[in-house]
């Protein structure tokens, strides 16, 4: 059993190195989409939860995880998708949020439930000049997880990783 736990830890460490195909500064564990890893005999099962139902990156997530584990000697890998509990930006790691900001994407603010009620999120900080005088341009951005904002001070348009 001890060796089993050790292997699971090793698997988590390996998966930590897999980058998000669309936002490569984030890893899949920063995003919080990897929910569980189990192992029986030589079979590894990784449970992930989709960020957005139609997100085309989900297929790539699965392939990248499988490839990563395969090359580290785990040959029997299956990926299970779990819908409930639904993925929430609340699961994103603090480290992940910092990395996003540096990358030029404003990280999700506050808790997901609140933003659904109040609608438009205000005072989203500009990743360039850190001003909070910013405006929503569109609820929908270049990928399903982002909204488009513009900074009123430095005028830069930027992506905001929206809360869900």
């Amino acid at each position, binding site marked *: 059993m001890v060796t089993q736990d050790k292997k699971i830890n090793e698997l988590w460490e390996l998966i930590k190195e897999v980058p998000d195909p669309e936002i490569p500064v984030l890893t899949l564990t920063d995003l919080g989409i990897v929910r569980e890893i189990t192992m029986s005999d030589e079979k590894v099962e990784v449970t992930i939860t*989709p960020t*957005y*139902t*139609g*997100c*085309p990156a989900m297929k790539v997530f699965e392939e990248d995880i499988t490839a990563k584990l395969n090359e580290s000697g785990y040959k029997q890998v299956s990926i299970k998708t*779990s*819908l*409930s*509990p*639904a*993925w*929430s930006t609340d699961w994103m790691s603090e480290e992940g949020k910092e990395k996003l900001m540096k990358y030029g994407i404003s990280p999700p603010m506050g808790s*997901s439930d609140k933003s*659904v009620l109040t*609608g438009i999120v205000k005072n989203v900080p500009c990743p360039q000049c850190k001003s909070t005088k910013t405006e929503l*341009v*569109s*609820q*929908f*951005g*270049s990928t*399903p997880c982002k909204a*488009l904002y513009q900074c009123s001070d430095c005028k830069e348009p930027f992506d905001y990783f*929206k809360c*869900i």
Partner: protein
Amino acid sequence: MDNAIYNYALRMGDTCLILSHRLAERCSNGPFLEEDIAMTNISLDLLGGADLFLSLAAEVEGEGRSADDLAYRRNERQYYNHLLAERPNKNFAHVMMRQFLHDALLHPLYTGLKLSKNEHLAGIAEKGVKESAYHIRHSSMWIVRLGKGTDDSKEKLQDALDDLWTYTGEMFEYNDEEATLAKDGVIPSFEELKTTWLKTVKEVFNEAGLEVPKDKWMATGGRQGVHSEFLGHMIAEMQYLPRAYPDAKW
């Protein structure tokens, strides 16, 4: 096989799929770039929902078919989408009106379905309710904006409402099978959904200065596989590739 769940999953999956495709047809025709992106994002969310519902249908059926098989290997008479979803794209106001009438149903529907005794349906809804909140916020914003815009935008919007209203009755139709599902707490009650839906649309139309059409004859048939002349053409295009190259992988 559980016929009731199978049929409900098809009804929902087909409606999401067909509306998703209609929005995808609008890609690159948005009034400006951000709106073009918004509509294709919503299209993608609906496609994701369709995939989940059709996967569930395929699983319940247990004949080894996949969601893709259901989407690409059925003919129009085997589609059970709401007629509203297949109405062709006209102008932007028309597209937004169709979207709003649908969103005003889908959001409360997912809210209710989250509590389903069927854990698959509850899981789909838990995911969908978050996404559909963005959709309804988006389309209702446009209804108010176009309604309070120019005479032209308001007229186009009112025309769209008058045209599409006929197709809203069917969204709340249910048969004995669905009545049982609702009674057993598997799906939300159509009566209650209708009340919520009416309240939402009346509120938004009121703010937009639109006139709610008087109750009139409502079109029906989608749920029996009887569609308008527009669905066949759309499906022909949608299914072309998988039908021409049945086992293609990419």
